């Protein structure tokens, strides 16, 4: 159990040098464009872009290997469950039936269902590199600064930055407590019965939670004593100035989003691309 989160290593390339604000805006724009559209052509286009950006960012493949395995399992489960629960949803959406083969009377594999499910799969998969780029190339402290610049209340932004700051600490505390309890004979492995294991997990969580509550008091007092929250605004030490490349990138993100909306409303007339009605 290692904290791979924000395994942030500073690099000097185009993506790293963009400000956190830019990356947040682009991330939101591109994610939403894929979320909205059910046109596999456009989704593949965004997927291609995100792979290109991923190459540009210079993030190593081994940094994200574990994540990719999780994603693959998740997508596979979703794929199977969708077919299990509603094998005819594709036909409902596209309004036609092109049968490929028949398993039982309920489970008929149709082209429509296949297109619907493959589209859905690519939809989720295509934004994965984007999320990883954003997480791995953004300085955690700068992230809060960029949140507050997109209009998020600075107290909310500060809460996020506290989360990022204390998450690794908490993992360490959790491990310390877990090891301490295990050395006292608490078994967390599969050898123990489920009920006992649950109780043992609780025995680790309770000290962790209570020490967190103490820590909340401590940090609150420290911040209050330094006059936090006195003014309506605050500045951020790590905020980067926006440069030409930032404006250019944000424009690009907005264009991708606009393209998705245009595909849906102008070209296809709905969120779905329907190749079955010629």
């Amino acid at each position: 159990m290692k904290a791979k989160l924000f395994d942030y290593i500073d690099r000097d390339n185009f993506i790293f040098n963009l400000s956190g604000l830019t990356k947040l805006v682009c991330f939101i724009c591109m994610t939403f464009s894929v979320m909205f559209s059910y046109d596999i052509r456009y989704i593949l286009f965004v997927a291609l872009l995100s792979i290109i950006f991923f190459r540009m960012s210079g993030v190593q493949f081994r940094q994200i290997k574990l994540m990719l395995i999780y994603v693959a399992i998740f997508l596979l489960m979703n794929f199977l469950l969708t077919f299990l629960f509603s094998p005819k949803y594709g036909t409902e959406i596209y309004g036609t039936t092109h049968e490929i083969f028949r398993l039982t009377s309920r489970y008929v594999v149709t082209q429509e269902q296949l297109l619907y499910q493959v589209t859905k799969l690519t939809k989720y998969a295509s934004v994965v590199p984007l999320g990883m780029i954003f997480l791995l190339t953004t300085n955690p402290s700068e992230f809060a600064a960029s949140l507050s610049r997109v209009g998020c209340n600075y107290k909310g932004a500060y809460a996020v930055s506290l989360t990022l700051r204390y998450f690794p600490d908490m993992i360490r505390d959790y491990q310390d407590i877990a090891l301490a309890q295990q050395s006292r004979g608490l078994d967390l492995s599969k050898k123990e019965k489920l009920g006992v294991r649950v109780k043992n997990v609780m025995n680790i969580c309770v000290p962790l939670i209570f020490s967190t509550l103490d820590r909340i008091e401590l940090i609150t007092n420290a911040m209050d004593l330094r006059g936090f929250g006195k003014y309506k605004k605050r500045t951020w030490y790590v905020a980067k100035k926006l440069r030409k490349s930032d404006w250019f990138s944000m424009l690009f993100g907005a264009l991708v989003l606009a393209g998705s909306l245009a595909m849906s409303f102008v070209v296809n007339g709905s969120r779905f691309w329907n190749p079955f009605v010629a």
Partner: protein
Amino acid sequence: MEKKLFEFKTKTLVATGLGAALFTLLFMYVKIPTGIPETEIQTAYGIGAFFAALFGPIAGGLIALIGHFLSDSIQYGSAWMSWVIASGLTCFITGFVYPKLKVEEGEFGKSDIIRFNVYQIIANAVAWILVAPVLDIVIYAESPSLVFTQGVVAAISNAVSAGVIGSILLVLYSKTRSKKGSLSKEA
């Protein structure tokens, strides 16, 4: 001291930040398998409900929102927005119980346990059976029969988590606080 429902003091802010970190940690690593594949009881919702009861709806809602978003992003690279919103909503609604409790003053009796559980069950039902599936259909165009089944399962398992873990934590926490007026002057 009078408790306001939507106050956002420094303490609420810090509780939000650290609570979200805790939520993320538990959400990723501490799950209780139920025996049914891909359905685990998330202990994180117990913590979410606990923090919501202690620090109010804003803290609760943000904790679940940030926590769920982060853990999804770390594990899967991108967040499943409809469920993230539903998570936030659960703890937000649970937080409405906050002005009615006096856990900090060491009071958490049977009637409080019932009150807390009524709020959290309503919150889970609204968020997971109503909001999450509807958002799934609107945002992701998922098939209704799948998402409503998932929603019901999620509502039950999260309500169990919030009910059992949340209540236990609140009872334990109330015992660590000294009661108001527990000291008496010796003659």
